[in-house]
């Protein structure tokens, strides 16, 4: 536990001292800001169904940040360590492979949460400025951020996995981007199939389709099935990462 804390502190430190963190933060703030602004405009120009929250979390700008964040914040994790060779000094000190993986994973999750704070502030500030004249449904907010967090847990694990596969950060980023996109498209495809009245897919969809999850969570429907799905797959992907790093040691 002590080792984990030391490593976590180091990882957090290198996150917050790296320029890339601030580039990502700026990018995410920009995308979320635009998504938020666009939603406000939509609601301003014409009365429409859905609240500010549902519009914001279904806007293309939200998806833009969804697809860019993960490769950017995870590509460094193991690739850099392997490139510099510091993984050798790290794993010949009294450090377990699991401690190394969890410290990096948890640090990334913490950074990911920080990335979403400004967007939450958008809603708070908006509510405050309009003095409560617009209603922002708390349930929808909780739902949205729950799904953003759970999908984050899963996608960060995928990023860790991609980064453990290669020394090259760019390759790691492309790999994790492709995997995340593939998963997303698979879900969308399922959704399409179940739209075609294929009953056996309807059930699967509730697990698989990220796009559906975002829609339903943003409208305040908190479903435990996707949460379980994401969390258990996170565990699976992290243990795969462990296998890769240990297997690497067996081979090279």
């Amino acid at each position, binding site marked *: 536990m002590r080792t984990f804390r030391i490593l976590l502190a*180091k990882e957090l430190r*290198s996150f917050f001292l790296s320029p890339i963190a601030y580039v990502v933060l700026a990018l995410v703030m920009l995308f979320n800001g635009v998504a938020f602004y666009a939603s406000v405009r939509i609601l301003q120009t014409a009365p429409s169904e859905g609240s500010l929250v549902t519009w914001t979390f279904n806007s293309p700008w939200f998806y833009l940040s969804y697809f860019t964040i993960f490769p950017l914040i995870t590509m460094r994790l193991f690739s850099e360590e392997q490139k*510099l060779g510091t993984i*050798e000094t790290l794993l010949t*000190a009294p450090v377990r492979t699991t401690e190394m993986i969890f410290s990096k994973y948890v640090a990334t999750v913490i950074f990911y949460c920080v990335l979403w704070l400004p967007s939450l502030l958008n809603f708070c500030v908006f509510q405050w400025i309009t003095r409560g004249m617009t209603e922002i449904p708390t349930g929808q907010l909780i739902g949205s951020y729950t799904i953003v967090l759970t999908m984050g847990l899963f996608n960060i694990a995928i990023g860790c996995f991609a980064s453990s596969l290669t020394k090259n950060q760019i390759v790691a980023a492309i790999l994790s981007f492709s995997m995340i996109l593939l998963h997303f498209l698979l879900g969308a495809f399922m959704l399409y199939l179940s739209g075609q009245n294929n009953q056996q897919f309807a059930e699967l969809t509730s697990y698989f389709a990220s796009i559906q999850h975002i829609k339903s969570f943003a409208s305040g429907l908190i479903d435990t099935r996707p949460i379980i799905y994401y969390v258990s797959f996170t565990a699976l992907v992290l243990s795969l990462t462990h296998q890769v790093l240990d297997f690497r040691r067996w081979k090279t």
Partner: protein
Amino acid sequence: MIDVKNLTKRYVGRTAVDNISFQVGQGEIVGFLGPNGAGKTTTLRMLTSYLPPSSGTVSIAGFDVFRDSLKARKQIGYMPENVPLYEDMRVKEYLYFRAKLKGLSGKDMRERIGKVMDRCGVTDVRKKMISSLSKGYRQRVGLADTLVHAPQLLILDEPTNGLDPNQIRQVRELVKELGRDHTILISTHILPEVEATCDRVIIISEGKLRASDTPQNLVNRLRTAGTVSLEVKTDPAAATEKMKKVVGVRKVAKDSVSEDGWCRFTLRVEATCDVREELYNMAAANHWPLRELARHNATLEDVFVEVTQAEQV
């Protein structure tokens, strides 16, 4: 301290380390030599539990490197080849990080870090970013890191690689000094350094153990021990023929012929006999003007060459 039994490492399509066994006792300084690609780094990585062996066992201070990995690792200070360091940290910060990882804390840790920074000469760069250090300083930071938890055993993979002669000498002094209260296994290509510091030498080549003894014994046992250099003024071809016939000379090589007729020869001679007198007499009898006749004892370098490329000697 180190007990290696039948250690083997196979990579896809090649065997990097082939059934090596050796021991290193408490307090010994052992040089670990071999040509490029011999498997030194691979062996050291297996000793430090970074690489698992294909077969065989390693135990460090009684702990099996794979079953009691964490305990074994605590005994070791390991400096990998090329000294990997985190570029985005300051020297002091890095050493604190490493010291904490290795289980130090509080006042003890601060004192220890101060001491190793002094010892390795990095106190005046402690606030610098590691990415801005020169190679020699990086090497020293790496060394400070290996010493920080006061391990019993130091394993250094080419610690003097890329240093200037002054720094090589400093590292040599440091190794000697550390050798008083540490066990050291050091891999290097600088043989005079090994001769000056090591109690014992292990030579491997193509993954196989070729020799393991004190430098002195290795040199003494060498078949072609030593050379004689000779400079005479004569016809080189005839002189070569004559000298080859002298008992104890194994090989005659003509180094150079100057414009005014002086020829330099290097003769490989056997360890047991001194041929200088006979060479002198030969020169006198043939009226060759002689201006140099000197014997050089064999060095570890000769041992290295002979052991690692046996067929060419």
